[in-house]
């Protein structure tokens, strides 16, 4: 007699049969029939046709039958809303039942029926249940508010349920408190600014009391809620920590991790010299270690979180290396995470153990794991200098195994070791070269080519080796092609006599036969460098490389701080801020760690240096390998600079390289009237054929390499010139000589500058890998300018800025490239003014003044959109003749007239007129009728559209009325907004 019998009735007419049974007089038969219906429902069969018959069974004293019918109702009510109404009466009646179980069941089920008509009837019973004498009913009702809010948020607010819910936080029963918190948290997620969970010391105290008494799930809700609170001072912070610490011994791992989150956050506020601070640090380790003995799924989530914790506070787990050792039957996802943490914890004290383990892993079966283990050995070498030698010999041992993927990974990491410890381990190059033929992965090939190029002078047959790669040049991936190009140029600079032919061959392959703009650009640049000034070329290409950093793959400090506030959540598993991926969260607030309590002591105290080592001496993050355009300095494969405080981008070489792209090119183009923008790094096939535009003077003397190229001497000179000089001459952010003239001429006659709105943040750093852009628009001397402040909030230097606009309503387009001449180092801010033209492609946007912008740097391309005030587009010759004005006013149909109110403006008509004139709104006539001043004004947009206005100003009345007439009435709204902005500023 099992339920599986319910599954067996699959013959035809089943529904019909069930219908008969449901309407049977016998209770037992009815119940059996409902069970059959439920069974069909669970396996996904459609039994909605039985709706009326099942609902008929609802009025019963039998609780099981009632529950079963409720189950059915919840599933199908949505598809049969009219029928569902039939059930309402029973629900309302059940909400009055003397048995609290039935009251709770009724209100709970009603909330699950997502039908608007039912929710109307739900309000009254719900209100009663929220104040029910039985806490079981109250706690069920609390959750019901969240359900109702999900269906009809407005209704919940109108009925005042939110306030009732807030009152429940002070309920005497801890379970009710926990559920109220859970419900409020869920509602708050969809209303980030509603301030529903208004936490103050009193509520916190209530929550902490409830924390000790409620169920494990309730504890999770309360702890997560506590984590959003910011204590007033370190005393309060400590007292909360003390009351939360016992949760670390809970059997439920989710409770433990939520408690860890609260402690990690509030710890920030404790002074580091406090005894309690040290005690707390010690208490955090054991529970984290215990999480690792749980089931693999729990382990995985725990490990992802530990990864964050270790980055923030490495001292917590520094003695626990062994628990991260990999067991051979761990699931692969656990193995990879453990490995990552092992490297983060590696230090001089434990490196021997770690290396022995890694070597063991490198002989395992799983390819992904083995690769990561080999890579980890290299990372250890870079991180712990004392171990470098052993790491290298371990890697050599592994290369001897000749296992293909092991060899390739080893070569990739050895390249980094060479970078970190120059002139130390080059003796192994011979061994590496033996394995040249077995390399088939681009990354390994590129690494090997880099090594050959870098040490060309020590490898006798470097030219032969590189030549062998050259044969299949076009079949190689971009990474390898770029690397090969650079390596051969290096080789040429080191051994110029024997390799001329080779270098010519690679340059022509790169420039003439390739479709890849990156490759062509680099090819041309090298070509010109070599052709004009080989000495400079040597300085650029063979420049001393900056050191690579010790730590890799670190999360940016700002992101890390946010993630620490989200320990235990999905965000912590994905290491992304919640706003980046959680769909349901509409505008999540960014959480921040609270500042430390003692004023500034975090910097002074020597203790913190190690504690907050991660955030204070930011090591660079190795950028993804794909960023090839980023750096011409043959550093493609290796991280850019920085160790210690971000250096002023003084390394002359780097500036030079920048200049080749930015200043140099632009300066040339600047001589002509309109410099074309540097293409964004998309596939726009734009090659340096710019040179054809510039006049080719006769005194061009071809050098042996550049002869057949047809580049202009000016261009060549620009490239060849000592790089350090360039930035100085182009430091003025405004480009184009023409604009400067305007600036001088126009600046004099203007009594008042055109209105320019204050800068707003267009691109938050969070969305752009650390690049923050704020900006505004201004019209200066007849030129529209986009004025931007770029701030680098990331840890690595940003270079290669470029900008592009999407098509927009008025054809705005950059009139020149983005003039960021020097690399933007971390925490540096730069002001840039970008002149705009209005001859770009036009597409009507919604709203009209919307502008979509793409900004590129060496890291990525970022997109944002902003709105410009339309007054930017009012041209200087927008003053109409009086006659023409009158005629035009009459000519434009009245339908096109739009009237607006400008409120709270305390200017008199003359002041207003003056102010508007500054922004090219010209007053043509003024009339005074019955104490009311009427100003007739005209303005013209860059695209030739005239807008006529009548502004009525009444003395003593701060409200102006404005009527706008225009043949293109769409612009009226924008014009009105500009009016308002101009007049009020």
């Amino acid at each position: 007699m099992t339920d599986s019998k319910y599954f067996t009735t699959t013959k035809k007419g089943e529904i019909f049969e069930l219908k008969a049974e449901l309407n049977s007089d016998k209770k037992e038969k009815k119940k059996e029939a409902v069970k059959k219906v439920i069974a069909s429902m669970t396996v996904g069969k459609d039994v909605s046709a039985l709706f009326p018959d099942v609902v008929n069974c609802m009025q019963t004293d039998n609780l099981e039958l009632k529950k079963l019918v409720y189950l059915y109702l919840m599933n199908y009510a949505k598809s049969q809303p009219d029928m569902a109404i039939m059930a309402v009466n029973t629900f309302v009646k059940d909400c009055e039942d003397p048995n609290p179980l039935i009251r709770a069941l009724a209100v709970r089920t009603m909330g699950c029926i997502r039908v608007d008509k039912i929710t109307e009837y739900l309000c009254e019973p719900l209100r009663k249940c929220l104040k029910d004498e039985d806490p079981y009913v109250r706690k069920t009702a609390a959750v019901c508010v969240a359900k109702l809010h999900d269906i009809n948020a407005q209704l919940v607010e109108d009925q005042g349920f939110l306030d009732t819910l807030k009152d429940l936080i002070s309920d005497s029963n801890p379970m009710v408190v926990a559920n109220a918190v859970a419900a409020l948290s869920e509602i708050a997620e969809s209303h980030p600014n509603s301030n529903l969970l208004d936490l103050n010391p009193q509520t916190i105290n209530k929550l902490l009391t409830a924390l000790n008494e409620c169920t494990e799930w309730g504890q999770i809700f309360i702890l997560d809620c506590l984590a959003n609170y910011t204590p007033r001072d370190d005393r309060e912070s400590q007292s909360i920590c003390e009351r939360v610490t016992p949760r670390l011994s809970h059997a439920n791992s989710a409770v433990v991790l939520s408690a860890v989150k609260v402690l990690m956050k509030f710890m920030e506020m404790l002074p580091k010299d406090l005894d309690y601070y040290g005690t707390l640090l010690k208490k955090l380790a054991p529970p984290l270690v215990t999480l690792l003995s749980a089931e693999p799924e729990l382990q995985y989530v725990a490990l992802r979180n530990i990864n964050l914790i270790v980055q923030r506070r490495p001292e917590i787990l520094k003695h626990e290396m062994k628990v991260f050792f990999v067991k051979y039957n761990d699931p692969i996802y656990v193995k990879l995470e453990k490995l990552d943490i092992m490297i983060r914890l590696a230090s001089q004290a434990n490196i021997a153990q770690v290396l022995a383990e890694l070597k063991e892993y490198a002989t395992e079966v799983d390819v992904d794991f083995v690769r990561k283990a080999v890579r980890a050995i290299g990372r250890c070498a870079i991180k712990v200098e004392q171990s470098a030698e052993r790491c290298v010999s371990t890697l050599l041992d592994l290369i001897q195994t000749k296992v293909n993927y092991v060899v390739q990974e080893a070569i990739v990491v050895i390249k980094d070791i060479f970078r970190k410890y120059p002139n130390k381990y080059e003796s192994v190059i011979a061994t590496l070269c033996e394995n040249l033929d077995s390399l088939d992965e681009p990354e390994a090939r590129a690494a090997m080519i880099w090594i050959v190029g870098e040490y060309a002078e020590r490898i006798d047959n470097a030219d032969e080796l590189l030549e062998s790669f050259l044969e299949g040049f076009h079949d190689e991936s971009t990474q390898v092609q770029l690397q090969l190009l650079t390596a051969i140029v290096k080789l040429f600079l080191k051994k110029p006599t024997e390799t001329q032919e080779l270098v010519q061959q690679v340059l022509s392959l790169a420039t003439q036969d390739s479709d890849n703009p990156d490759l062509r650009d680099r090819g041309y640049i090298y070509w010109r460098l070599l052709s004009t000034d080989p000495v400079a070329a040597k300085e650029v290409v063979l420049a001393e490389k900056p050191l690579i950093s010790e730590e890799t793959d670190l999360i940016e400090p700002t992101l890390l701080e946010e993630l620490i506030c989200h320990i235990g959540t999905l965000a912590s598993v994905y290491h992304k801020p919640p706003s980046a991926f959680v769909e349901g969260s509409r505008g999540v607030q960014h959480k921040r760690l609270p500042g430390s309590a003692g004023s500034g002591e975090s910097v002074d105290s020597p203790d913190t240096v190690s504690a907050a080592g991660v955030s204070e001496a930011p090591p660079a993050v190795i950028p993804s390998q794909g960023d090839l355009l980023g750096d011409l300095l043959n550093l493609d494969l290796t991280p850019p600079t920085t160790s210690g405080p971000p250096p002023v981008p003084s390394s002359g070489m780097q500036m030079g390289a920048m200049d080749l792209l930015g200043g140099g090119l632009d300066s040339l183009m600047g001589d002509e009237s309109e410099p074309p923008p540097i293409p964004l790094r998309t596939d726009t096939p734009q090659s340096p054929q710019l040179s054809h535009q510039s006049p080719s003077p006769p005194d061009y003397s071809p050098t042996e390499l550049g002869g057949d190229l047809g580049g202009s001497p000016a261009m060549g000179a620009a490239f060849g010139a000592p790089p350090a000089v360039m930035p100085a001459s182009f430091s003025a952010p405004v480009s184009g000589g023409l604009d400067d003239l305007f600036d001088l001429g126009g600046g004099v006659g203007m009594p008042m500058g055109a209105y320019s709105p204050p800068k707003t943040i267009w691109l938050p750093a969070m969305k752009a890998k650390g690049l923050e852009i704020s900006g505004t628009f201004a019209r200066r001397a007849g030129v529209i300018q986009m004025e931007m402040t770029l701030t680098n909030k990331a840890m690595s230097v940003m270079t290669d800025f470029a900008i592009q606009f999407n098509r927009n309503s008025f054809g705005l387009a950059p009139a020149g490239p983005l003039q960021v001449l020097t690399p933007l180092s971390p925490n540096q801010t730069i002001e840039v003014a970008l002149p705009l033209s209005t001859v770009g492609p036009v597409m009507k946007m919604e709203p009209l003044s919307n502008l979509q912008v793409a900004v590129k740097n060496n890291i990525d391309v970022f997109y944002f959109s902003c709105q410009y005030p339309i007054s930017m587009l009012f041209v200087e010759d927008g003053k109409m003749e009086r006659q023409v004005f009158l005629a035009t006013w009459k000519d434009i149909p009245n339908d096109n007239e739009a009237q607006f109110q400008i409120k709270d403006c305390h200017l008199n008509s003359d002041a207003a007129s003056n102010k508007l004139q500054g922004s090219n709104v010209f007053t043509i006539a003024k009339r005074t009728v019955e104490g009311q001043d009427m100003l007739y004004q005209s303005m013209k947009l860059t695209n030739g559209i005239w807008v006529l206005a009548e502004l009525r100003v009444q003395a003593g009345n701060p409200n102006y009325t404005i009527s706008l007439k225009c043949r293109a009435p769409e612009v009226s709204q924008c014009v009105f907004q500009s009016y308002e902005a101009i007049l009020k500023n």
Partner: protein
Amino acid sequence: MIHSLFLVNASGDIFLEKHWKSVVSRSVCDYFFEAQERATEPENVPPVIPTPHHYLISVLRHRIYFVAVIQSEVPPLFVIEFLHRVVDTFQDYFGVCTEAAIKDNVVVVYELLEEMLDNGFPLATESNILKELIKPPTILRTMVNTITGSTNVGEQLPTGQLSVVPWRRTGVKYTNNEAYFDVVEEIDAIIDKSGSTITAEIQGVIDACVKLTGMPDLTLSFMNPRLLDDVSFHPCVRFKRWEAERILSFIPPDGNFRLLSYHVSSQNLVAIPVYVKHNITFREGSSQGRFDLTLGPKQTMGKAVESVLVSSQLPRGVLNANLNPSQGTYTFDPVTKMLSWDVGKINPQKLPSLKGTMSLQAGASKPDENPSINIQFKIQQMAISGLKVNRLDMYGEKYKPFKGIKYMTKAGKFQVRT
């Protein structure tokens, strides 16, 4: 919160779905199936899988994937813990947690799931409370229900639900009052080639079976409580008392429950109860490999090592193994290359050994990897950490209960590298 639950069997069929909010189409599981296909082993399916609109969090238990669907930011551990609770409840109710058992009891399963979660919020997950709400099916009850037409759904609000001791129901009565505690320790270790310990740690639990009348208040004290510096308690344990006096004081739930689990970390010295002498070699150019394994006891305080099972994943190149065990039986699966040797009890006078040859594919090169050896064993009457219960006292009730304490040590993940 938790939106829906899908149960997927080993062959990739969804055999049960439950939705706590609106219905989520089962096609969302396609993302899970994709991940399942990519994973080489069933247990390698990642526990958290993102899809365009949902997140799938899954656990694999008893060869069934429990796939929870969530839509907003929910702590994944919360979901995983809840899924574990579902599995435990099924096991508790039906004895086993298999597809057949779930299908046989689908209505009870549905009632349970409905009771455990409301709108995605956990409602009642304590087995005591659930059992009062929904009676577990027994053959007798099913028959009685059929005859009398009574139901297996409780009519009354469970008493424990809102009391200060939600884990215990009132009105418990037994004729024989008894309380048993099992101290079970699992030793996780990695032993390297040369026999030295790379890492070893102990996961211990104290499981209890308490059948006492009324509202007993128990205290349990240890001879050496200092060992327990990393513990997780059942909610019934009074934490303050433990902090202050290192005494476990609690009102126990009725029946079986886990009183505490503890972890003796790798920083303490952990005794290793067995040793392995091994010699597994392959020669270059030969199609034969040598296999030689001997087990022996070590640091067992005179207790016998029993139920020993040795298993090892041999390299892919091994075609067959021709071995000779001094005791017990061995099997070699030529498909999975899994060698397992059921040793039984280790006799310290005559150490068990397994010797012989492995045949390799002719002409194949020597395998790169060294097989790891996994060992399972049990030692009765001993807790390897040395933990000992001092005394158990009962307050609050008048009768004299029968008390018992048992110790056992087992191998957890005990691995020997070769």
